């Protein structure tokens, strides 16, 4: 089922709009991330998709059906919340069965479907527990099972990984992708973590200040940022921004290579050095700029050394300093 | 500049006020549909509250000003302030007010002091807290009429167990319920006994929230036991004591049922006639509804004024965290 947002606008109680006319399409079976800093409107967009908020203007289409004014309970979507929002008084099985109970699915069938979902999410050994007795990762799986059990055509995930510790976050990230591919469900995933968005999605929708800045596949959004915002928000360690007249040059740290003095574009002293796994991150003070460069293991540089750096032309992004757009 | 400032202030004040009012009425995100639905949920409670709690406030104001009112048809004719004049000048009302104040002054401090002692004792013994607490609390869940009936028997002049116990100390039988001088003491004894449990439970809850670290700190600072009580326990407990004193004063001003059951009337020579009893008499025995309403409003005014005074005093004495 394709999801379309047309000129979607949302203002709370006569305040300036938090969402300023969003237009996008998410294709059937895709996993799309809504990425952006807090307050950018990504969660509002998700709440609008769920039907928990009603837009001030604009339309939401599920397939070719306009669902803009449909209540959440009639949209037939699945949703996973940041804090999982499991019903604390119900067992895991009852939690998963809850949406089916609301649809008046016969009990035997409901149990069967819930158990199947629990197997898919690998929590079928926990069915009798209460949510309070589960770890964060297990609660997460229950929340996913509950969201998927009624076989919705759209799955919404609201920062589902932010309450987990780092190791579990990686594991659950893969799990979500595995389950999503297995079920083949159109999924929209809200996150403020660019790495998460890049690693899991088919499409990243980058938002800021109530607007979509850029939407593209993870690779494209990384390689061809359309604006300063896009370039700086995505990538870790962050991209180098160098002022050059009325232009700003953006160069990703891994694209800065050591070179002979003659070819160098930037020269300076190493003020900081850190090993990140196989790579080495250095900070180089060149005039008024401090550049981050990610070197491969072969390049041995020490603190205090003078280094000469260069970058391929296609790896230098030019931005207009006044508009912030790519030129 | 100087001329415009007050005007600007005034404007901002009114606009602030109207904004506040608007926010109080127009809740964020409410629509006609959601409003209609919410009022459907509120309807059962609202009907009851409007009919039996809000409307009667205005109705009793109206009733109190009827000078000619038919009890049986419940119709009023002429209006005036005669009822208030009557109540405020009535010797019986004055007596009822004196009795009530005597009762309040007798019951409230005694209840609070004894409750505090019991609460401190229960708190200090490590074991049996719940056991003692539930025993002292028992009268609180018992019907006041039942308690008064039992005390009527305990206070019995010839055969009452209280006079029997007093006889061990060579005290002659006291006509607790028959003699005008003893009516108030009897009423106070019974009320203190039955109010202790509530005070104890409340104060005990207050004691349990006091941070133990404060005692350690006071001890390190060299405070003795009594000093620790006055510098830590009492200030930390003062909000509870304050709450207790306000609710007990209000509750004691409203005493009626106990008297009805204990004396089967207002006591010998009206010695146990309280304000609410006076209202009941005017309403039910004299069948003068406007006068009873006027007396009820006067009682409300008195309680309200006393509560305000208590609040003002409390503001100075109560220590809030």
């Amino acid at each position, binding site marked *: 089922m394709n999801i379309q947002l047309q000129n979607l606008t949302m203002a709370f109680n006569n305040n300036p709009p938090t969402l300023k006319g969003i237009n996008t399409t998410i294709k059937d079976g895709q996993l799309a991330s809504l990425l952006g800093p807090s307050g950018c409107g990504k969660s509002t967009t998700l709440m609008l998709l769920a*039907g928990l908020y009603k837009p001030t203007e604009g339309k939401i289409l599920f397939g070719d059906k306009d669902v803009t004014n449909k209540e*959440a*309970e009639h949209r*037939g979507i699945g949703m996973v919340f940041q*804090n999982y929002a499991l*019903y604390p008084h119900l067992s895991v099985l009852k939690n998963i069965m809850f949406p089916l109970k609301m649809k008046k699915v016969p009990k035997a069938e409901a149990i069967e479907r819930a158990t199947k979902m629990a197997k898919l999410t690998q929590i079928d050994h926990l069915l009798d527990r209460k949510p309070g007795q589960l770890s964060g990762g297990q609660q997460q799986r229950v929340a996913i099972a509950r969201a998927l059990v009624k076989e919705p055509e759209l799955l919404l995930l609201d920062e589902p990984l932010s309450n987990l510790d780092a190791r579990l976050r990686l594991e659950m990230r893969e799990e979500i992708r595995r389950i999503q591919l297995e079920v083949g469900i159109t999924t929209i995933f809200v996150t403020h973590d660019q790495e998460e968005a890049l690693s899991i999605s088919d499409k990243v929708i980058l938002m800021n200040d109530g607007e979509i800045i850029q939407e593209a596949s993870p690779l494209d959004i990384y390689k061809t940022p359309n604006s300063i915002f896009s370039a700086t928000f995505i990538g870790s360690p962050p991209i180098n921004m160098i002022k050059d007249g009325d232009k700003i040059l953006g160069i990703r740290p891994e694209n800065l290579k050591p070179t002979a003095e003659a070819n160098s574009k930037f020269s300076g002293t190493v003020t900081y050095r850190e090993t990140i796994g196989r790579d080495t991150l250095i900070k180089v003070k060149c005039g008024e700029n401090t550049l981050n460069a990610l070197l491969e293991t072969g390049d041995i540089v020490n603190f205090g050394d003078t280094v000469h750096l260069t970058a391929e032309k296609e790896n230098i992004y030019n931005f207009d300093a006044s508009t912030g757009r790519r030129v | 500049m100087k001329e415009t400032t007050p005007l600007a202030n005034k404007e901002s004040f009114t606009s602030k006020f109207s904004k506040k009012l608007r926010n109080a009425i127009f*809740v964020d995100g409410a*629509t006609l549909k*959601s409003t209609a*639905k919410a009022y459907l*949920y*509120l309807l*059962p*409670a*609202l009907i*009851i509250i409007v*009919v039996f*709690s809000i409307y*009667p*406030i205005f*109705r*009793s104001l109206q*009733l109190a000003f009827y000078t000619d009112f038919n009890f049986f048809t*419940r119709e009023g004719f002429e209006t005036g302030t005669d009822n208030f004049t009557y109540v405020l000048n009535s010797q019986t009302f004055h007596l009822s007010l004196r009795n009530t104040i005597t009762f309040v002054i007798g019951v409230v401090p005694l209840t609070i002091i004894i409750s505090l002692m019991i609460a*401190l004792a229960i*708190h200090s013994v*490590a074991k049996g*807290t719940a056991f*003692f607490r*539930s*025993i*002292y*609390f028992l*009268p*609180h*869940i018992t*019907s*006041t*009429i*039942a308690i008064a009936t039992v005390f009527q*028997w305990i206070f019995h002049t010839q*055969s009452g167990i209280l006079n029997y116990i007093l006889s061990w100390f060579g005290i002659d039988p006291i006509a607790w319920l028959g003699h005008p001088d003893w009516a108030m003491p009897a009423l106070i004894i019974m009320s203190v*006994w039955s109010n202790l449990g*509530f005070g104890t439970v409340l104060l005990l*809850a207050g004691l349990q929230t006091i941070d133990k670290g404060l*005692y350690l700190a006071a001890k390190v600072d060299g405070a003795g036991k009594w000093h*620790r*009580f006055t510098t830590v326990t009492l200030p930390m407990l003062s909000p509870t004591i304050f709450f207790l004193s306000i*609710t007990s004063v*209000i*509750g004691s001003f409203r005493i009626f*049922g106990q008297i*009805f059951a204990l004396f*089967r009337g207002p006591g010998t020579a009206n010695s146990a006639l309280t304000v*609410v009893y006076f*209202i009941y008499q005017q*309403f039910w025995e004299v069948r003068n509804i406007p006068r009873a*309403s006027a007396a009820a409003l006067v*009682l*409300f005014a008195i309680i309200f004024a006393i509560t305000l005074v208590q609040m003002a005093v409390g503001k100075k004495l109560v220590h809030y965290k």
Partner: protein
Amino acid sequence: MSDQTTLGQGPLSKTTLYILLSLGSILMLLPFLWMIISSFMTNHELLSINPRVFWPSTFQWNNYYRAMQVAPFGRYFFNSFVVAILGTIGELITTILAAYAFSRMKFWGRDILFAILLATMMVPNEILIIPNFITIANLGWVDRFEALIVPWLASVFSIFLLRQFFLGIPIQLSYAAKVDGCSDFKFLWYVMVPLAKPALITITLLTTISSWNAFLWPLIVTNITEMRTVPVGLAMFRGEAGSQYDLLMAATVLAVLPMFVLYLIMQKYIVAAASRSGLKG
């Protein structure tokens, strides 16, 4: 729980405190014990002076039977039970619905309406009783169950208590439930109500106890014997039984028994509930 060395609240030793507390407990229980013992004695034994009798020579179970002959206590019990049960169920329903609206629904006038309701809590009952009697009389409800039950079917205090509890339940649960296909009512019934069980127990106990013990209002709206509640019946019994203290005590035991049993079972909840509010009045 408490630490004697850090608290050190008094000059008295623990043993002394235990003795004093036990003596106090006896003083608290004595009236009840004397009530029970008296209810099994003959009136002759009760009024004996020399020698004074403190224990029944034979237990006069008959007193209870006789008390019920003098006044229709069975009927009083029936009335009190009907009033307490229907009143409590009714109040729970109005409270749950209203508390849900105040805590989870968006509607015009919400905050101002809530403030008005809170303000009504300040008005003492005595002001309301006379106009309410007139309302009841105009409705033709005197001497009917409606008069005993309907005015108490909603309580601002209970609504306030439950609203506070509801507000403590995360809002995400209601979002989750909506997405799961719950209507407001189903969410309230399947999620909020089970989660609010502690608050609902508190409200149930407070309502039941104050309904059972209510006196002034039932006294005023019942004229005929058949409609009296237990406290009214007991207060009137003295006139009917004369100075037969054996019967009077038997009747009193009967009157307090249901709440004693409730207290025995739910003691912990009742104490907790009462410390959250004043119970009587």
